[in-house]
């Protein structure tokens, strides 16, 4: 982890790594060893965004977040994200009230995947789910969805 922010949402080295992998020079695990430690260990949304090198994302209605208004169980909150913004290169997911807000990032830079992702996350309490899309023009776009986490059959 020589340079923690190397694997940013923009993933400049993606094409190079892909070429290296195709040539059999790298195994996938090595190519992806640049897990963004500083972003994942950030305790606030602001710090996480800074470590992801995401600057001033603009609110966008073209990011569709499908998640429950009230989660049946905070341990498994299903989220689906569809970006309708042309040139989408990556989708980052942050759970604002989690101890470490940055949850995951998905890379579409290779152009082979549609800008869509389904995942399930843990939420310790009611929180905004913040989604940041990076586009090929170097800009950032954001959308937010609140998910309430409530009590279930527990208590005994």
């Amino acid at each position, binding site marked *: 982890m020589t340079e923690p922010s190397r694997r940013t949402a923009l993933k400049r080295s993606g094409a190079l790594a892909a070429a290296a992998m195709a040539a059999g020079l790298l195994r996938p695990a090595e190519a992806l060893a640049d897990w963004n430690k500083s972003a994942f260990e950030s305790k606030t949304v602001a710090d996480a965004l800074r470590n992801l090198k995401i600057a001033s994302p603009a609110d966008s209605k073209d990011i569709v977040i499908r998640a*429950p*208004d*009230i*989660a*049946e*169980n*905070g*341990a*498994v909150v*299903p989220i*689906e994200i569809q970006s309708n913004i042309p040139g989408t290169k990556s989708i980052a997911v942050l759970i604002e009230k*989690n*101890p470490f807000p940055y949850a995951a990032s998905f890379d579409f830079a290779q152009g082979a995947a549609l800008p869509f992702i389904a995942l399930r996350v*843990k*939420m*310790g*309490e*009611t929180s905004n789910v913040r989604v940041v899309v990076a586009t090929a023009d170097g800009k950032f776009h954001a959308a937010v969805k609140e998910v*309430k*986490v*409530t*009590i*279930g*059959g*527990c*208590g*005994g």
Partner: protein
Amino acid sequence: MTRTLALCAAAALVAAAPVPQAAGQTKPPAVERDATTEEFEKFRAVLEADNPAELFELRGAALWKTPRGPKNASLERCDLGLGPGVVKGAYVQLPRYFADTGKVMDAEQRIVHCMVTLQGFDAAALAKQPFSNETRTPDPVAITTFVAGQSRGMKIAPPQTRPQEREAYAVGREIFFYRAGGYDFSCASCHGEDGKRIRTQQLPNFTRPEEAIRSYQGWPGYRMTGGVMHTLQWRLNDCFRQQRFPEPGYVSDSLTALLTYLAVNSKGQVYKGPGIKR
């Protein structure tokens, strides 16, 4: 992050719905309750479509086929009621009477029986820690999940042809309605009426097929709390804990009787396979 207490405490953060001028003894506002339930239902399909229970089915399938235990045998000669080795459709026709043991047995009880008789495992050892936790899924749980998955899409059809099967149902019915313990609870205290909840948890009414199936078809179930796989043996065990009863014996005949009552009451409904639970 998945602490139950944290989730309980977080309940206070839920914004209150507009409160109507309800009188003290009126029913809770239907609008509010339905909104929560509907929201859960909307995402049930998403959760069920890709259910981690399938991972446990895979593991169970491998365990079924692999020669194991002191006798180094697989379970491929295990008779689940439809003949040795027949797994397809067996789960929805259990509990049933088995001539070789002279008693009615449920799926997990029968699987444990096969593990003991065919593979040479020790029954007491299997009963010692029979339920899943975050670090361990006991073999009978994975195998039961596999067996249940092989009845996906089939109708619940436990036989009631032999007197022993009818007696198990009758005894199970008595256990279902038996009030005792420090809180005076029976199974029916929570599961005897339509449309009731504990907190936000819907309580199926086990006395009617359309309601009973709502719970019966969810087991074995992947439980989101803790992310562990559980069978009906666990479900009944934890029900009795909260019923303030002593602990039922694992794969005991009391539980088989109760499961016979529940299965027969779900008769004719389609079993959707291992489920996902809150």
